[in-house]
């Protein structure tokens, strides 16, 4: 059962920003934002043809500045947000804006991919998430599974909840919260929880992870020194509402139960440098993807803390007959927590990894030198999880 070879796509520019097109459920599509101070920045739309193992790309011009973060609307395929840095009066400020992709991009790219780079189309600006009073934006988060009307931006030490109105052409701050404390506090990452009716948010600043209730805009928990060093990213388990994973400069990936924040549930230490990105698979939350500046992407199988029944940790009493028979059907030993694969296709630091929104067995990783690698979960494991 030979696994397909990874598909590699090279960008001309350095890049950090990667997202799956969240609202697209048919095509496997990723969006990559480039970073260049000298040239016009681009958003590459990477379409992956699973059957032919081929990549189709389209390029959209993003002339506002280099892209630090990109995020697609969960409701509208064409709508996305970017965080980009703007230099004015020898001052660098990272702004955020909501964009719409021009409707023709799809047809144009298919006809003549070579020409598209010559004459790229430009993104249509919908609105700015005006942050001049709040400072640089670290990231913009869409409401998970929402209707594409609400976004959160993390600017310096502020959490801003925006309402998008009039087809996203107008953004107003509906509520905000500010993290007060000693020194210059700055959010480095955040994640909007898909659980609890989307009323919770987790943010990372320095070594701490904080949870926020969006209704009251107040802090609900705080994991001080969640990591020895800076926390770089976090992600919620899509199926277990209290579980989240975090990663950081101490080379570790930690799993937390936010009800018991004194100790992590589990800790992985597989990378040999900072871990920049951590992502749960949307459907099978035992699959975890991490990207690190040691140029590696690691796919781990965390069965013991996933929502799937796990042979050793689930009490026998709790196992219903149904589950038991299911296990018997498998006829195999239960899977152990393990590393499934380490992907070494990158030669520079990997700053972003992302699962496809359409195919749960497929993921992309992006390294600083502009190399995008699309990989699949090994077939053997896939069948074991499915069957």
């Amino acid at each position: 059962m030979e696994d397909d070879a990874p598909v590699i796509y090279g960008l001309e520019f350095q890049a950090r920003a990667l997202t799956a097109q969240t609202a697209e459920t048919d095509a496997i599509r990723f969006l990559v934002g480039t970073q260049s101070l000298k040239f016009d920045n681009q958003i590459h739309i990477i379409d992956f043809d699973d059957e032919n193992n081929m990549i189709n790309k389209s390029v959209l011009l993003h002339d506002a500045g280099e892209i630090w973060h990109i995020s697609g609307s969960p409701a509208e395929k064409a709508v996305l947000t970017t965080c980009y840095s703007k230099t004015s009066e020898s001052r660098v400020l990272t702004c955020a804006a909501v964009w719409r992709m021009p409707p023709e991009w799809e047809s144009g790219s298919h006809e003549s991919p070579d020409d598209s780079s010559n004459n790229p189309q430009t993104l249509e600006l919908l609105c700015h998430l005006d942050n001049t009073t709040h400072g640089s934006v670290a990231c913009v988060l869409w409401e998970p599974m929402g209707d594409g009307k609400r976004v959160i931006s993390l600017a310096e030490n502020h959490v801003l909840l925006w309402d998008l109105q009039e087809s996203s052409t107008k953004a107003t701050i509906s509520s905000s919260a500010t993290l007060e404390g000693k020194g210059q506090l700055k959010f480095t990452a955040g994640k909007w929880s898909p659980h609890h009716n989307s009323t919770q948010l987790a943010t990372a600043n320095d070594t701490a992870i904080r949870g926020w209730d969006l209704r009251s805009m107040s802090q609900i928990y705080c994991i001080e020194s969640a990591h020895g060093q800076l926390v770089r990213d976090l992600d919620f388990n899509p199926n277990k509402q209290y579980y989240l994973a975090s990663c950081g400069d101490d080379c570790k990936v930690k799993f937390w139960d936010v009800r018991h924040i004194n100790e992590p549930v589990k800790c992985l230490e597989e990378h040999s440098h900072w871990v920049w990105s951590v992502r749960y698979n949307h459907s099978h939350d035992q699959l975890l993807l991490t990207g690190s500046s040691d140029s590696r992407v690691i796919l781990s199988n965390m069965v013991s803390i996933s929502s799937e029944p796990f042979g050793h940790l689930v009490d026998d009493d709790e196992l219903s007959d149904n589950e038991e028979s299911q296990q018997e059907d498998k006829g195999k030993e239960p899977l152990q927590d393990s590393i499934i694969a380490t992907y070494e296709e990158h030669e520079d630091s990997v700053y972003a990894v992302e699962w496809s929104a359409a195919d749960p067995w497929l993921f992309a990783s992006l390294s600083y030198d502009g190399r995008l690698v699309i990989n699949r979960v090994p077939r053997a494991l896939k069948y074991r999880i499915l069957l």
Partner: protein
Amino acid sequence: MSSATTPPDSDPTGRRRVHSMLKLYYGLNEEGTAAEQAESLDPCDINGPHFDPEVYLNKLRKECSLGELMDHESCMVKQIRSLDSDMQTLVYENYNKFISATDTIRKMKNDFKKMEDEMDCLSANMAAITEFSARISGTLQDQHAQITKLSGVHTLLRKLQFLFELPARLNKCLELQAYAQAVSAHRRARCVLQQYSHMPSFRGIQDDCHVIMEQLAQQLRQKFRDGGSSAKDLSECVELLLQLDEPAEELCDKFLSHAQSRLEADLQGLEVELKDSAVTDTDILEFIDRGCNEFVSSLCLVIASYQELFINQMANGKLHVFVDTLAARYFSLVEQRIQEEKGVGDNSLLVRALDRFHRRLQAITKLLPGSAVPSHGTEIVVRAARERIKQYLSALQTFYHDSLTDVRQALAAPRLAVGGANATPSLPELLTSLSNFILNQLKSVLASVHLFTAKDITFSNKPYFKGEFCSQGVREGLVVSFIKFICQSSRQYCESAGDRGGSTPPALLLLLSRLCLDYETSTISYILTLTDEQFLVQHHTPVTPVTALCAEAREAAQKLLNHYVKVQGLIISQMLRKSVETRDWVNTIEPRNVRAVMKRVVEDTTSIDVQVGLLYEEGVRKAHSSDSSKRTFSVYSSSRQQIRYAPSYTPSAPMDTNLLSNIHKLFSERIDIFSPVEFNKVSVLTGIIKISLKTFLECVRLRTFGRYGLQQIQVDCHYLQMYLWRFVSDENLVHFLLDEIVGSAAHRCLDPSPMEQSVIEVICERG
């Protein structure tokens, strides 16, 4: 010649002559003279008895001349004269003697006559006496027979009297509690009474006795029941009762139950002492002593007397059960007491106590072969020994922790008193003292444990102490566990410290790592050899091999050293990160100096280098640059030039930038940043520098630079280049990372116009 009777005389010849003459006179014929007679048969011998004057004269006349004759004659005359005078004196001498002899004889004659009369008288008297005597004995004959008869009657009467008095006597004995006497008296009389019981009087006596004896038995039983008397009394009591034909079974039960109550009292005493021991602070030896002296000796006594009393009648089963139950209680007490013995200071007391305990139980073996008690006792000793080993292990562990705390304090001290840095011990000193402390402590513990197997200890020849105790207990349970514990706790330092931001001082990590490595290379095998020798360990059961322990120690050392690298790297990283993050790189001024933080990085790296150098060897460098900073410069500047002349900074060809660095990467190995290091200084330093520079790179990539920002980075990198290459194994690594930093900064630069290499060098050399 002469007879011995004559004393030697001045003139023996003259004397003899006188003698012989006297002999002649008295008609004596001595034997001695016979020989002389033969000599003097010569008739010419004038002194001889056969002297013939005629022959002599004739001979003289024939043989001698006139003159000679004349002389002879005169001589003869002279001799005759002297003989005459001699004769005369003799006569005179003897005359008086004759006179007195005659008187004496006359007197005797008179006396004898008187005596004869008296003798006659005496014989007459004797005859009278004989007659009288015969008469008397004739008269006394009758009386004698009568007296003999009377005395026979007398004894009989005495016996009868004894019998008649028996009840009274028994009563008296009863009063005086002289039971033994009473019983023996009764025994003597019993058969007689039995025999003559048909006679009413005897019958009466017998009944009386019976009643009294009943009473006595009652009293004995009472006494028996009351208890309070000693075991000896008790056994006496039982003996008497047995003699009184009490049922043995019942007695036996009673005896045992009674002994039990007394032994239980002993046990209770022990129990009280056990409770008080915390307060009164009696040591275990005293306790065991007391237990032995009171309980065990009483128990032995009971066993002995039981066997003496009942062994013929009863089976030993009862006794076994009895002894077992009591001993079980005693053992539980002893065990409680042993468990209280937690202090590990002096083991000899415990060992001696156990020895005594064990030794005293041997008595039971002798008394009661086949009893399970001694083996249970041995089990207790074994358990105590096991427990002891555990205690020692935990004591060792605490000691280890304490000494680590000491080391920690010693390490922290220089920071408190920077002035007196010389006073504090250096790392190697701390290492040696720490490892010596541990080793000495381990040795002393081994010595303490060794007491268990000393020759003079009775239980040391038990199979457990010969085999399992040495191999499983001491070697595995103590030594191996301790070494494992050291490794384990070392590893914990790595894990706990990582989360909470380095609560362990890095120097301690380094020290521990070296300690573990030393253990791997020599100490472990030394300790184990020492143990094996001391305890003559025979490995009946599989034991942890030295290699496994060494591997574990090495692993721990590796982990610690990795962690040390990580911690130190993170400290420097933190400095670099802060310095990059907090600066406004777009609006910075033209660089005039190397930033202070870079100097600090170099300083710190140097001090780490010194620190590591104290404990670890230099290690090998790849492509060792002999001394020339010049060569370093050339390498660096050439790579610098590549960047400078590369079109990367020109806006026209963005692809080439990637190309350059990609080509670079193609030919260089992938750098693992937090990778394991080797046990040498260069490797450690390489690791730290790798981490630091990688952090620098990642931070630079997150910032945007102005022209002077880029130039400052150039200056800083060049400065680092100047100083860091000497610490690492492969200087190309430093070059590569620094190039990457400068390259990234150039990428992130709004106005990438690099500084002239010569200017950079000037600034860096200025300091």
